[in-house]
């Protein structure tokens, strides 16, 4: 917590990390639009995340998954629409502000500075430093060392906090990015294609890690092409298609085979008929499922 405080001195005290009102959503997006140079990437997107929930975000390339999460992390600003964190609307979201609100991201491109030592990669953007800006490098090295042995399971003698990222395998890099997110008391962790480039064993470890996020009472958004991975960890699944939410349902409603049919249907028609016989009758929870007309 001290290191978070040190780096986010400008964040309103208690926000994001304070006690949550029961029943408030961790995150809610309403009617979000985003275009890049005339190309509409997101169109009237509603999205939400409950505390302690893992949402799987599915969709083809170009469906808008990455843009959606870059809006949540403050990297992009929406053209239209609302963003609410713990029920409070945030209009000026930036990367540091999103981090202060407890949003942490494990990026597809891993967001690591390759030539830099591990400790600098863990603390980038929020170095432990005093009022003059002088860093406590020793403390950052110690914390990195502890995270390496306790959280990442790095046992090799050649890996130290001063090792550069170039010396790490793909799985080790992913582990570094995830541990970085967890260390800073994230309330919600966004995993963007975290299994990309990982071996089978590393993937298994990663999926276990996501279970651990839920066990800690934090929530997560899990983005992947591979819906086997998504299906195995998610509580709820949201499907994006061409910038729109095509489906949003609790995972338990469908089997993996049914999910495959749904994905196929969305891919060909761009929408998912919510009143299919698969849906339980009388389930009126609009947020649990809705189809969007294209």
């Amino acid at each position, binding site marked *: 917590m001290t290191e978070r405080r040190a780096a986010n001195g400008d964040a309103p005290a208690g926000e994001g990390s304070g006690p949550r009102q029961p029943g408030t959503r961790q995150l809610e997006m309403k009617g979000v639009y985003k275009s890049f140079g005339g190309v509409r990437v997101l169109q009237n997107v509603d999205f939400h995340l409950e505390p302690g929930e893992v949402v799987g975000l599915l969709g083809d390339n170009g469906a808008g998954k990455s843009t959606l999460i870059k809006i949540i992390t403050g990297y992009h600003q929406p053209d239209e629409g609302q963003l609410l964190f713990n029920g409070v609307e945030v209009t000026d979201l930036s990367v540091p502000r999103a981090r202060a609100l407890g949003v942490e991201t494990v990026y597809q491109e891993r*967001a690591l500075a390759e030539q830099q030592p591990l400790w600098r990669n863990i603390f980038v953007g929020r170095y432990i430093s005093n009022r003059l800006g002088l860093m406590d490098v020793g403390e950052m090295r110690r914390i990195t060392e502890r995270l390496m042995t306790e959280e990442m399971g790095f046992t090799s003698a*050649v890996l130290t906090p001063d090792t550069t990222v170039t010396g790490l395998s793909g799985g080790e890099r992913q582990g570094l990015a995830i541990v970085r997110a967890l260390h800073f008391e994230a309330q919600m962790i966004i995993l963007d294609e975290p299994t990309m480039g990982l071996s089978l064993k590393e993937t298994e470890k990663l999926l276990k890690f996501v279970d651990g996020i839920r066990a800690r009472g934090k929530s997560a958004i899990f983005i992947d092409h591979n819906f086997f991975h998504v299906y195995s960890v998610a509580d709820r699944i949201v499907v994006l298609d061409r910038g729109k939410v095509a489906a949003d349902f609790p995972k338990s409603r469908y089997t993996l085979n049914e999910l495959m049919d749904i994905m196929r249907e969305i891919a060909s028609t761009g929408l998912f008929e919510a009143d299919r016989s698969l849906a339980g009758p009388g389930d009126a929870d609009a947020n649990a499922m809705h189809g969007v007309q294209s």
Partner: protein
Amino acid sequence: MSAQAVSPAPAPSTKEQAPRSSLAMFTTKWAGQIGITFAFLLLWVIFLALAPDTFGGDRIYKSFGQTVPQFGIIAMMLTMVIVSGDIDLSFPSVMGLGMVGFVWVWDATDVVLLGVIAAIGVGAAAGLFNGLVITVVGLPSLVVTIGTQFLFRGMTLVLVGGSSFALAATRGDPARELLVGKPFDIPMEFVWFLGITVLAWVLLNRHRLGGNTYVIGDNAQTARLMGVPIRRTRIMLFVLTGMAAALAGMMLSLQVVNFYPNVGTGLLLPALAAVFVGGTSVFGGRGSIYGTFIGALMIGAIPAGIVASGLTDFWTQAIYGAIILIAISIHAVLQRRFQR
């Protein structure tokens, strides 16, 4: 580093490899610095052997103490600019423009110290201008600082009407003694150079500014995603370089007790050479203040060494070039061997 290939090493072999790998790790981490130190010592021994009269005495080192800081002070801040992935080619002109601030304020107030402060202020403003054009307009620093090199020099020439300005009246002033005096026969320029070297090392390696500098130069995308204040950091580095250039311009002018509006021309390449000979990567993300320090000493010693060794001055440029190429080749080879 074959040991790295077997990352989950079993316990017994880990024990065996521990001492070896800590030595290897030391070498890996400091390969560049060790290399440049050896190159420096080798060069010194060669000069000492070829010109024992010159390099065995102390006069030449006192002379170096005045000449090396002229570009060495700037090279320190320039190192950080280059680590951040930018470059500044305008500093020779900032040396002149800062002196315009000096002579104007000194002339008006008759207080040398105020002139010094004005010069540093002008240097900071010139750096701020560079930084703002580069980050706000979003242009490459290489192009912008070529432009401002002409702009700042042109402004200097216009503002003083192309004429030089005698500084003899500053003699004996404490502010002048602070910059170019010789307490205990040690040139103050060199004391400043040492102090700024330490400052640059702290800034780059122990300050948030430097931490951000490394990441911006290494991977700007990562820096953006991780919320690093990219614009502020880059501007700050140009401001620091501008201030260093103004300081160096003052030292050079006060040494010769005259302000020539073309002060600083000819120092562009020595300063850049000191940075690159020191092992700082032209691609950003990696750099060494210690390396730049040694690089500046080498670059500063070469012209005198060549002449003292009995070669004509015409050889200077050629040998300069050869030594720079050899030094950066050594760095590249060490980098490939130790850092993968």
